[in-house]
C-alpha cells in the first residue's frame, strides 16, 4: 500500500507533475468520492421535486459556466455571446429531435457539435481582434443569433417556439425531475472531468499562455489563432450541450430566454465564482441560480400575500438591482470570486491556530 499523502506545511513540489496534480493530498480524493456518493445516492432521494428542479438547473448552468470559464478564464477571450450559443444548442437539439427524429443522446451530442461549429465561426474575428474589440464582436454575434432565432421562421418557428419530445434512452423515459437529475449530473461529472484534465494538457497550457500574453505565446511557437478557435469551439460545445439538456428538460423552447441577459448571467457566474477556476464556475452557477430563484420566489410570495400585489409589482424591478449589485460588490471586494473565498476558508482551517 502506498503512503498516504497529507498536506505539507508549504509548497514543496519537486517535479512538474506534482505541480500539475489535481489532488494535493489523498483527502481530496476521499472527499471527491464522498461528494459523488452524496450527489448520486442521497440528494435525489432526499430532495423535494422543486428543490431537485433547481438542482438540475444548477447542473445545466454549471456545464455552460465551465465552458465559458475555459474561454474567458483560461484563454482570456471575453465572449458576451454565450447565451446565444446556449440557445443554438437548445434549438439544434429541438430541431434534430423533431424534424430529423434523432434519439436523445445523439441529439444532445450533435447539438453540442453544431454549437461548436457556430462558436468557431464567431471566434474567427479573434484572428485580428483582441480584448474589447473581440468582446464587441461577440456582442454583435449575440444580437445576430438572437435575430435569427426570432426571424428564421422556417427553421425555428419564430416566436411560437418548438415542442421538444420527452427524452428517452433505450426506451427508458427520462421525463421527471428525478430521472433527469441522473442525466444532468452524469454529464456534469463527465464534462467537469474533461475540463479539469484539459487544462493540464498541452492545449490547456497553451490556452493559459495565450491568456497571459498572446504575443509571447506566439513567440514560444504556439499557433495562437488555431488555439483561440479551439477554445471557442470547446466552450461553445459546453454551452450547446447544456442548452440541449435544457431544451429537453424544459420541454419547449422560444427565442425569449436566449438574450443578452443570459450571456451576462453566464459571465456573472464565472466572475462571481472565480475566473480560471473550474470549481469556481460551479460555485458561481449555484449562487446565481439560487439567487434568481429566491428573488422570483420573493416576488411571488408578495404577489400572493393578499393586498400586497401592488407592492410586489413595485418591488419586482429590484430583482435586477440586486443582481447588478451582487456583480458589482463581488468585483469590487472579491475580484477573484468565491473560489478564492473557499480557498481562504479552507487554508485558515488547515493552518489554525497559526495565522499563516
Amino acid at each position: 500500500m502506498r503512503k498516504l499523502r497529507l498536506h505539507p506545511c508549504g509548497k514543496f513540489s519537486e517535479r512538474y507533475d506534482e505541480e500539475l496534480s489535481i489532488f494535493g493530498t489523498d483527502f481530496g480524493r476521499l472527499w471527491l468520492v464522498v461528494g459523488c456518493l452524496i450527489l448520486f445516492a442521497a440528494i435525489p432521494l432526499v430532495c423535494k421535486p422543486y428543490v431537485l428542479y433547481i438542482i438540475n438547473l444548477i447542473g445545466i448552468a454549471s456545464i455552460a459556466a465551465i465552458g465559458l470559464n475555459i474561454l474567458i478564464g483560461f484563454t482570456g477571450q471575453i465572449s458576451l455571446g454565450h447565451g446565444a450559443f446556449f440557445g443554438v444548442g437548445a434549438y439544434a437539439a429541438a430541431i434534430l429531435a423533431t424534424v430529423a427524429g434523432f434519439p436523445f443522446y445523439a441529439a444532445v451530442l450533435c447539438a453540442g457539435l453544431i454549437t461548436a461549429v457556430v462558436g468557431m465561426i464567431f471566434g474567427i474575428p479573434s484572428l485580428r481582434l483582441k480584448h474589447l474589440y473581440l468582446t464587441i464582436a461577440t456582442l454583435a454575434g449575440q444580437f445576430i443569433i438572437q435575430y435569427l432565432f426570432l426571424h428564421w421562421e422556417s427553421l425555428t418557428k419564430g416566436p411560437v417556439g418548438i415542442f421538444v419530445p420527452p427524452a428517452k434512452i433505450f426506451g427508458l423515459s427520462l421525463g421527471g425531475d428525478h430521472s433527469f437529475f441522473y442525466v444532468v449530473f452524469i454529464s456534469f461529472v463527465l464534462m467537469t472531468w474533461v475540463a479539469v484534465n484539459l487544462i493540464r494538457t498541452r492545449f490547456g497550457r497553451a490556452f493559459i499562455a495565450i491568456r497571459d500574453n498572446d504575443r509571447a505565446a506566439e513567440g514560444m511557437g504556439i499557433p495562437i489563432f488555431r488555439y483561440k478557435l479551439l477554445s471557442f469551439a470547446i466552450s461553445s460545445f459546453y454551452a450547446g450541450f447544456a442548452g440541449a439538456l435544457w431544451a429537453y428538460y424544459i420541454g419547449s423552447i422560444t427565442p425569449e430566454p436566449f438574450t443578452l441577459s443570459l450571456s451576462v448571467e453566464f459571465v456573472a457566474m464565472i466572475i462571481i465564482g472565480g475566473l480560471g477556476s473550474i470549481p469556481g464556475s460551479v460555485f458561481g452557477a449555484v449562487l446565481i441560480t439560487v439567487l434568481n430563484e429566491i428573488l422570483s420566489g420573493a416576488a411571488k410570495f408578495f404577489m400572493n400575500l393578499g393586498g400586497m400585489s401592488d407592492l410586489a409589482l413595485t418591488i419586482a424591478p429590484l430583482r435586477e438591482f440586486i443582481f447588478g449589485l451582487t456583480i458589482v460588490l463581488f468585483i469590487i471586494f472579491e475580484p477573484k470570486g468565491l473560489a478564492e473565498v473557499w480557498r481562504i476558508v479552507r487554508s485558515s482551517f488547515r493552518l489554525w491556530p497559526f495565522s499563516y
Partner: protein
Amino acid sequence: MMFFVQLLFQGLSIGFLYALAALGFVMIFKSSSVLNFAHGQLLAIGAFIFLALASWAHLPIPVAFLLTLVSTFMLGFIIERLFLRPLIGEALIEVIMLTVGLAYMFKGLLLFAFGGNLHNYPDFLPKGLALHVCAVEVPPVYVATFIIGLVFLLIFGLFFKYSSQGIYMRSVADNQTASLSLGVHVRRVFALSWAIAAVVSAISGIILGIINGINVHELSAVGLKVFPVVILGGLESIGGAIIGGIIIGLLETFTGGYISTSLKEVVPYIVLVFILFVKPYGLFGLKEIERV
C-alpha cells in the same frame, strides 16, 4: 422621392442622436479606456430626472434643464468615485462586468422609481421651428435635434481642442504615465470625464425622450446601439463618433424603410461585424501598437 427625403431627414436626425449618445461613451473611453455598458441607463437617468423636474415638479423648462445637467454632473462624479476608481488597473473583464452590473442596478432602480410605462414631456418646443424641405415637413423636434446636436458637438470639439481640461483629457488618453509625470491630475481627469459624459448622456437622453417618449427599456437599448457607432468611427475619435452615428442612423432608417422593419434592429450589428473584419480600428481610430 418624398419618401426618400423623409427617410433621409429621419435617418440624419437619428444619426445625430446616436452621435450625441456616442459622444459620452467616447469621452469615457478616451480618458479611462472603460467600455461603458451602462451608457443607455445614463441616458435614461438624465431623461427621467428632466421628466421629474419639468412635468412633475412643474419647474420652468430652462431651470429644469439646468438642474438636470447639474445633478447628472454630480452623478457622474459619484459613479466614478464609488465604482470605477477601485478598478483602475484591473483586468478588462472586471471593468466590463462592473459596468454591466451598474447597468442592471440603474435599470432596476429606474423601473422601481418610474415604472416601465411610456412617459411624455410637455410640449415645449416652439412650432415655428418646423421646416419645409422638398415639400416634406420636418417636425420641430428634429430641427431642434439638429440645432442642439450641432451646438454641443461644436462646444465639445472646442473644449477638447482649446481648454486646458480638454487638453489634459487628451493627454491622459494618449499616455497615462507620461501625463502623470508632467503634472496632470489623472484621477481628477477620470472623474471629470465621467461627469461630463453623464451630462452629455443626459442631454441626448432628453432629446431621445422628446422624439420617442421616455421609457426605461427603450432608452437602455440605445446604449447598446452605441457600440456599432463607435466601432465604425473608431473608439477614440469624437469626429468618428459623429460620422459613425450618422452612417448607422441612415443605414438603419433606409433598411427600415426599404427592406424590412425587423431587419432594422440587427443591421447595425451586421455592419459592426463586417467593420471589425475589414478595419478593426474603425475609420478614425488609433491602431494599437503593442510591444512585448
